[in-house]
């Protein structure tokens, strides 16, 4: 459960990226966050991963106030949240298996866990046969699916996807969205920030529209991309 109360965020004391945001997202929802560039979608996601603190207001995830998290608790928050980005953020010097393994290892997993979980995760995203491929040997869609596999290592309760299809063609976009829907069916909350109209309309779930740092529309069901 995510609760955002009267939250504002100002960059460098100047630019007001978010203005008095109020939002509640229930567990298991699939939320599309839409709006033009600079409308505040990415900033909102950064607040949720506690990369930045709100200038005003409070944010609660599963009852935990992010403003009161100590530095050593931040990693634990981030293990509850999987993140997927437009630029994939994969390590080019590591192959598919190693990219996922690396993420597990830095969280303290031992070799046994890694050897057991990584093939499963690659299987979920349909990359079992690409385990030894390096990112440059994979298509954009495959890279994004690999990034999603990595986001799943902690069996997160929430996945934040920031323009995950921004660099992908239609076919690959479809693959990635299908995968996100599948993960959502298994019970994970998904927040998808995008300005891809077709994607949003195809998903047809809750759609939150943002403009100039405000929420201008919140369609709880059967949402459409409307500007």
């Amino acid at each position, binding site marked *: 459960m995510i609760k955002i109360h009267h939250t504002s965020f100002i960059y460098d004391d100047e630019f007001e990226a978010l203005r008095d945001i109020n939002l509640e997202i229930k567990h298991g929802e699939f939320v599309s966050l839409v709006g033009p560039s600079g409308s505040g979608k990415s900033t909102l996601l950064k607040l949720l991963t506690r990369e930045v603190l709100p200038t005003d207001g409070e944010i609660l995830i599963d009852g935990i106030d992010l403003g009161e998290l100590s530095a*050593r608790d931040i990693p634990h928050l*981030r293990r509850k*949240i999987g993140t997927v980005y437009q630029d994939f*953020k994969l390590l080019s010097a590591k192959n598919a298996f190693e990219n996922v393994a690396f993420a597990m290892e*830095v969280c*303290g*997993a031992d070799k046994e866990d890694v050897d057991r979980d990584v093939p499963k995760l690659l299987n979920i995203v349909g990359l079992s046969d690409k385990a030894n491929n390096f990112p440059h040997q994979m298509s954009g869609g495959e890279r994004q699916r690999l990034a999603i596999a990595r986001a799943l290592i902690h069996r997160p309760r929430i996945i934040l996807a920031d323009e995950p299809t921004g660099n992908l063609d239609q076919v690959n976009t479809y693959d990635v969205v299908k995968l996100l829907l599948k993960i959502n069916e298994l019970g994970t909350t998904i927040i998808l920030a995008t300005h891809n109209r077709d994607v949003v309309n195809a998903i047809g779930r809750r759609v939150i529209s943002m403009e100039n740092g405000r929420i201008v529309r919140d369609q709880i069901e059967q949402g459409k991309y409307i500007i």
Partner: protein
Amino acid sequence: MHYHLKETLKRIFNTGWLNFVRNSYVSFGTTGVMTLVLLLFAGLMSLNFLSTKVVEGLQDKVDVSAYFKSSASEEEVASVKIDLEKNQLVKNVLYISKDQALADFKKRHAGDPLIQESLAELDENPLQASLNIKANNPDTYAEIVKFLEANKFRSLIDKINYYENEAVIKRVEGISGGIKTWGLIATLLLALIAILVTFNTIRLTIFNQKQEIEIMRLVGGSNWHVKAPYLVEGAIYGVFAAVIAGALFYPIAYFLSPKISILIPGVSLIGYFGSNFFSFIFLLLLVGVLIGVASSYIAIRKFLKV
């Protein structure tokens, strides 16, 4: 997912080691500067050891001699000796009889025929029995002299000689103190440079690994996982520098030791550092690791936001 301390430590050390190896050229320079610091530090320790030895030697030479008149009997001299030995300021008292004094004198001037001839012409031993007194603390000689002056057999004492080596000791201490101060300043200055160089090296590593660090943060890598490898990297520079400094210092000490023994008899530099080999290497390691970890810590604080 299970979290294992052993795996965690293994990964942290492996990553730190890889950071060190992959930056080989930069690592080489960093280790070099740190080695220089440790060598200077070792030199300072040698100097400290040598000047202490010189001062100790001089202090040992300071003594009070009481010369007795020919009329004094051996029993009377022995009684004064016992009085002195009871005094807490006195370390030891050496009795030199008339015969012993003569024998010493002859021996000392064995190569001087004129003195030998003059001695031969004398009917009786012209030398006096004496007590040679060493104090526990060289500052207390004046008090010992006073104590002797007050002795009941004072009338039997012809003269009391009190060699004032204190001035020489002060000078040696002054010179070695000066060298130590400047040596310390030079060492600290170089240590500062080493910290800056190491800091910069770690900064480079951090910048090179921006992507990895970002991913570690995103997936919830603990602060330890993200930061500790850089601390390990810093410590590795220190360990290597200590080993190299040790490997350079011991041969140098070995070659210099005989030359120093000529200047300061009875002092063996290699003997001292040889018998303290493990504690000395440990000290070098400690200083090296401390410098490395401190630099790394500053770099992490400044450039690694989690």
